């Protein structure tokens, strides 16, 4: 039973990481790459850690695996958000197929008010 579960989960996890890396190669612009990579790799690493917890059915290993998954889920979106925000601020181009961009209107509306100190933004 444990072997079957480990096999299924590790296959799905490895496939998720594989699709994420193919996604880096194939996506047309930076934001789509970021969007594909962060989630799929988090899911893949999470599934592989669950496999480790199943295989070594030991409290210490399970605790560590759960802690790693918890911190991964806690930190990966923050990292993706910061990378995406920085890319948008430094003017990385958006793919030409993008339908709407409401963030651009937001910054343009804000710019005439005099937002002189972008460093002070949190």
């Amino acid at each position: 039973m444990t072997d079957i579960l480990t096999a299924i989960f590790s296959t799905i996890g490895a496939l998720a990481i594989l699709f994420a890396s193919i996604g880096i190669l194939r996506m047309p612009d930076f934001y789509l790459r970021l969007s594909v990579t962060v989630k799929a790799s988090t899911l893949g690493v999470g599934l592989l850690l669950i496999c480790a917890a199943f295989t070594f059915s030991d409290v210490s290993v399970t605790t560590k695996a759960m802690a790693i998954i918890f911190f991964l889920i806690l930190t990966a979106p923050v990292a993706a958000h910061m990378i995406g925000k920085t890319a948008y601020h430094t003017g990385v181009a958006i793919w030409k197929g993008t339908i709407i961009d409401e963030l651009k209107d937001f910054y343009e509306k804000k710019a005439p008010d005099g937002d002189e100190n972008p460093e002070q933004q949190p």
Partner: protein
Amino acid sequence: MKHFLMNLLLSFIWVALTGSLYYSNFLFGYLMGFFILWIMNRQEADRRYFNRVPKTIGFIFYFLYEMIAANVQVAYDVITPKYFFKPGIIRYPLEATTDIEINLLSTMISMTPGTLILDISEDKKSLFIHVMYLRDRDRFIQQIKKGFEHKLLEILR
């Protein structure tokens, strides 16, 4: 919060009494403690904890389902030669007000494949989400509101 701590204490007592430190045993003790507290607090006024726990478990499973479904969609798009996506950056009006609510909501949205938080306005009223499959803007906003935000706020408030 008080009920949660009491429940944890009861499950630790269960684990100590049975003497086998496994997660399954801990979970069983937690369920027993929940049941005992539920019976003992039937007449009390503050019963929020007993509604929250089932809702939280349901929400976790719902979130896992959403995450896997979206992952399958993105993976299908990655390995087939044609692009199906229509990306767009939209403004999402927030109902969540405090920091912890916004944090949890944006973590959920970011963890679902196909959506990525790009920015949050300074008055904490709106999020800017990069969406991969944007068929209809208003329908997408409704979907997130009904699917994630209302359920999350129900648990947290």
